[in-house]
């Protein structure tokens, strides 16, 4: 999933959000999560990202959350698969 970039938002795109600075409602928090999860339609996503370009609190939150997620993913150790596991599975399937 590609990470959304604030600077890629085109100003002429449909504006569903006010471009004014908001009081950082929980809706903006939810939208940030939905955007980073890739679970939102394009107009609403772009509209929010446009809003976040003008709203300091939302911009901070979005960038912070994006960076945190990247760090979280990096820090979770993906353990090595034991060398014999694939062989064992093939053996089980073959004898099945």
């Amino acid at each position, binding site marked *: 999933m590609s990470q959304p970039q604030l600077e890629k938002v085109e100003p002429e795109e449909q504006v569903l959000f006010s471009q004014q600075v908001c009081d950082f409602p929980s809706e903006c928090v939810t939208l940030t999560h939905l955007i980073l999860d890739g679970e939102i339609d394009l107009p609403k996503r772009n509209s929010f990202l446009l809003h976040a370009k003008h709203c300091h609190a939302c911009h901070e939150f979005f960038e912070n959350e994006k960076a945190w997620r990247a760090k979280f993913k990096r820090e979770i150790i993906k353990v090595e698969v034991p060398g014999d*596991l694939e062989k064992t599975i093939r053996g089980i399937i073959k004898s099945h």
Partner: protein
Amino acid sequence: MMEREKKIASEKDRVFEQEFLPQLQAMYNFALRLTFDEDEAKDLVQDTYLKAYRFINSFQSGTNAKAWLFRILKNSFINDFRKKSKEPSKVDYQEVETFYNSDDVNMPITSDLRVDSLKDMIGDEVSIALNSLAVDYRTIIILCDLEGFTYEEMSKILDIPIGTVRSRLHRARHLLKDKLRNYAASMGFQEVDKE
């Protein structure tokens, strides 16, 4: 007739090789994070692959094999492995005897294998925090933030409505954030939300 059966068998093998086996890394990682035990994780993955092979006819080739396999693994864990983990722990009498015969009486008398294997697996505060979450919260974080499943896929894997996926994910992230608040601050992540 023989020719047709041969064709079906070879298609089954192709699906298994090309669509199922490439998911082994993700499957083992998920299993280990559920069980915290290398042997149990291996058993769980083997069991999952065997079930997948048995029911391979109900899998539509070209659809999401990873989600299908994760669902089987999750159900196997709930049905078999959780039951087992509720059994009383066993004492290794050989280990006790060795201890009493040894000179080093300051050594801990028994070792908890689960804790030992967990120690090997975790290497940082993020993993510790993740592993300390209740299994339902841990699972949803792994599926979403590590494996990148969509809400719809998670809904199918976990057999819960999408609304529950959203609320559970929200709760899990909140719990994780609480556990990692100090660590995140020390890494330069400011707290800017009002959740």
